[in-house]
């Protein structure tokens, strides 16, 4: 017996060592796999920044690295939003730039210089590994270490997260999901322990989250909701009180240190629930304190009276502040999550972004695969064995599912909770189905013991005895089959995740790829060709007008001043550009002269069949312009008679004469896209265009790229003398007789009328 116990003691300490080694190895592998699966675009092409927003982040980071942190915070960018400029320091979330800058600085100090572009490109894959580790800790707090490992492995490769954090996608979400999971882990830990230290750490991590992403509003509404739910179902305790009070006080003050956030936590409606719950928590704790000191009847009156007065005063105060203008009502972006039709009518810019459309089931399946299917099972386990922290994950899951259904972009916030719950479900199932023999032996011995005790009384006992003994052959088989099939599910997930990441989410949108019929790859690098042309062949202070999608790329790659860019903070300026694009050439020329524009850039996909070009986006330009200038631009004028949108033969005259049409199709009427196509056949729209002979009056073509994708036009300077059109000239009749009007009263030509006559000796007559 002694030997047995010492052996089991050795085994126990060894098993702890094995467990920690296994945990470390699995997490390291998850980090490595997450990093590697995001590298498809880099391996296939090269290490550049993708898409649009990351270019601005990269430019800001480069500026910070070059000029220092305080110059970055005070940076006023006069090369964007000409002539308004943009206060970058106050309108950006600096967490991303500071993180890259810090890593760059540390590596520099260690004499290991890495170009800032490479750091920016590889930041998101690195942080995905950290996210996996944070998810492991979160799930370990919620359930067990085994579930944590499952969840970490799920989130390392889950396509919902990978799509926003591939290498080259240098955007806020890459680090924000890590900060989100870490904040939630620290919150759960502080609710479990009730210690001020964990709550303070949670507040610090919340500060990092606020500096990283605008989605921090989700955290500051979910945590108060959790506290409110705990109060409502009667799980309020001193731990929750300590955790929430410390977190709210510290977190709010820290979040106000970010210049972009400023005083928003006390001034906007999105932060009011947190403040309200803070007050409520104090009241509830006070009641709890009073409860032990007064009689029950007194307590009930104090409670109900106090609570109703507090709620009434709070609600009235909030409404008064909103009516008085001190507290802003819900901003458009967040209000459109509740009232989904709001954005389309009032703020067309929000509605036009493709990421803000509601979600189809294809996104759910592609981004989550089996974790979306298994997620209700995890929710079931949490509901069955509920405690304080599982209430949190249930609330997170329900709210995230709703928001993800309403907006595609928010699938990203659903992915972590789905991975956590799927990890819990798989871990529990495997736990029950992999442990074959112990379970049955303990059952059988238990049954045997019962039988021996009550042998005389139960006759039916023998039948149950027989059944439990004969279960043994079936049990292990069924269990191993189930385990095997579960492993098949997990393998399918891994294959799907890698496949989707490789094929769907690894496109550097700066470069277009397509495959020829015999499998070769054709790369169309038109964007960079055009931006390089701009960089080399235009003066340094040239102003480029284009639609706002391309603003950041032009500023980043071509290094020129732009009029509007992806920040979209000034709707009227964008509407002006939209009006210029949709008016006829002379009206557009006036606007362009006012705005000091030198070059205009349009994207045209008709030669290669690119469907994201400006003609396909044109209706949004019209709508946005109509929002600001309803008298000059009317959307209905741009449709055909039957009400469809077309640039073909039936297009309306307004459409055929607008600047966008002219610039897209200049000289296109003479070209053929293929040997068997008619001249002027547009491959994207699949018909021949309406007006083929286009003459440009105020702009001239400066550059068109190889596949006609980007077309740059130079705005001509105004002529020195106003030329009069041939049909409008007025001819003075020449010939014999002089008309009397040219001869003044003084008589002859060449004399001044009313000239003062000087007679010596007399004063001159002033007529």
């Amino acid at each position, binding site marked *: 017996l002694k030997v047995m116990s010492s052996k089991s003691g050795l085994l126990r300490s060894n098993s702890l060592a094995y467990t920690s080694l296994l945990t470390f190895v699995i997490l390291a592998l998850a980090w490595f796999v997450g990093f590697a699966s995001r590298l498809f675009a880099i391996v296939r092409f090269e290490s550049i920044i993708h898409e649009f927003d990351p270019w601005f982040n990269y430019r800001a980071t480069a500026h910070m690295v070059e000029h220092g942190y305080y110059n970055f915070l005070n940076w006023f960018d006069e090369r964007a939003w000409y002539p308004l400029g943009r206060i970058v320091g106050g309108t950006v979330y600096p967490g991303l730039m500071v993180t890259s800058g810090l890593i760059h600085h540390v590596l520099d100090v260690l004499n290991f210089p890495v170009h800032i572009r490479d750091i920016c490109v590889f930041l998101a894959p690195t942080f995905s590994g950290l996210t996996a580790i944070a998810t492991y800790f979160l799930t370990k707090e919620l359930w067990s270490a085994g579930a944590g490992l499952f969840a970490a492995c799920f989130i390392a490769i889950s396509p919902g997260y990978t799509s926003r954090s591939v290498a080259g996608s240098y955007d806020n979400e890459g680090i924000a999901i890590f900060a989100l999971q870490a904040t939630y882990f620290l919150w759960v830990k502080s609710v479990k322990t009730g210690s001020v230290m964990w709550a303070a750490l949670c507040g610090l991590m919340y500060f990092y989250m606020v500096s990283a992403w605008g989605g921090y509003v989700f955290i500051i509404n979910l945590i108060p909701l959790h506290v409110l739910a705990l109060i409502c179902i009667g799980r309020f305790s001193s731990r929750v009180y300590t955790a929430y009070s410390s977190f709210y006080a510290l977190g709010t003050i820290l979040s106000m240190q970010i210049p972009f956030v400023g005083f928003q936590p006390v001034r906007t409606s999105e932060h009011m629930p947190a403040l309200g719950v803070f007050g409520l928590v104090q009241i509830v704790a006070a009641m709890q304190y009073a409860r032990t000191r007064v009689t029950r009847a007194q307590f009930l009156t104090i409670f109900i009276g106090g609570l109703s007065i507090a709620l009434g005063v709070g609600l009235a105060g909030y409404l008064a502040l909103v009516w008085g203008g001190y507290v802003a009502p819900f901003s458009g972006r967040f209000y459109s999550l509740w009232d989904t039709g709001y954005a389309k009518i009032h703020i067309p810019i929000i509605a036009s972004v493709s990421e803000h459309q509601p979600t189809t089931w*294809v996104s759910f399946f592609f981004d989550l695969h089996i974790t979306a299917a298994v997620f*209700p099972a995890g929710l079931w386990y949490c509901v069955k064995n509920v405690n304080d922290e599982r209430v949190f994950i249930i609330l997170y899951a329900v709210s995230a599912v709703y928001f993800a*259904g309403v907006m595609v972009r928010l699938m990203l916030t659903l992915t972590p909770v789905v991975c956590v719950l799927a990890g819990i479900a798989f871990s529990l199932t495997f736990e029950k189905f992999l442990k074959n023999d112990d379970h049955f032996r303990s059952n059988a011995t238990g049954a045997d013991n019962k039988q021996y005790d009550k042998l005389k009384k139960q006759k039916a006992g023998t039948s149950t005895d027989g059944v439990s003994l004969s279960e043994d052959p079936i049990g292990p088989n069924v269990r191993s089959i189930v385990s095997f099939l579960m492993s098949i599910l997990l393998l399918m997930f891994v294959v799907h995740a890698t496949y989707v990441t490789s094929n769907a989410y690894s496109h550097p949108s700066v470069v277009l790829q397509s495959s020829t019929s015999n499998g070769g790859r054709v790369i169309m690098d038109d964007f960079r060709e055009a931006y390089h042309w701009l960089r080399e062949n235009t003066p340094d202070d040239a102003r480029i007008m284009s639609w706002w999608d391309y603003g950041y790329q032009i500023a980043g790659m071509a290094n020129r001043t732009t009029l509007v860019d992806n920040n979209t903070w000034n709707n009227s300026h964008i509407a002006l550009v939209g009006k210029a694009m949709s008016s006829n050439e002379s009206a557009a020329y006036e606007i362009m002269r006012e705005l000091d524009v030198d070059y205009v850039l349009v994207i045209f996909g008709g030669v290669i069949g690119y469907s994201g070009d400006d003609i396909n986006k044109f209706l949004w330009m019209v709508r946005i312009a109509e929002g600001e200038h309803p008298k000059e631009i009317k959307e209905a004028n741009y449709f055909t008679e039957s009400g469809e949108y077309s640039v073909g033969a039936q297009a309306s005259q307004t459409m055929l004469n607008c600047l966008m049409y002219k610039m897209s199709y200049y000289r296109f009427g003479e070209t053929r896209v293929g040997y068997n196509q008619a001249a002027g056949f547009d491959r994207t729209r699949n018909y021949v265009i309406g007006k083929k002979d286009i003459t440009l009056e105020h702009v001239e073509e400066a550059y068109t790229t190889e596949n006609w994708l980007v077309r740059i036009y130079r705005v001509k300077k105004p002529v020195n003398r106003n030329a009069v059109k041939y049909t409008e000239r007025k001819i003075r009749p020449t010939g014999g007789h002089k008309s009397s009007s040219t001869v003044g009263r003084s008589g002859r030509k060449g004399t001044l009328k009313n000239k003062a006559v000087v007679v010596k000796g007399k004063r001159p007559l002033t007529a």
Partner: protein
Amino acid sequence: SGKMASEGMEAPLQFLIPSLPRMFVFFLVLVSYVFVSGGVPYCTITGMPFMGTAVDDRGNQVPQAIMPRSNGQYLGEGIAVGFFLTMGGLGMVFLDRMNSMTNPSRMARLFLAAVGMACTLGSIFAIRAFIGKKDHWYFKASMY
């Protein structure tokens, strides 16, 4: 003292707020998950019909259940897929029920295990069939 006081707090608060049974709340969440994961908000907001129509080779209008593009969907296919996704989760719940049954017969154990595995695995294969109609590259494209 924290726990005792919280028990005392239960009575007056649950006085004000009716406490719903847990399983009822879970059932509501499950039903809403069927609709949300099936993309019903998308169909409601963009006004998609239950089923669409397509023209076949001879020029007749035939009903079309699955929209061949992957950036849109009909209501019917959405609810079907949402149902399959939830069934996948319920399959694992069945497996859990099978394990926590106290005195099961061999038939009941086997049956629940089979149903559970069929639900979980079958849901994924069913949804793959739907995907085949929408995204042709999913089964064809090679990893180049």
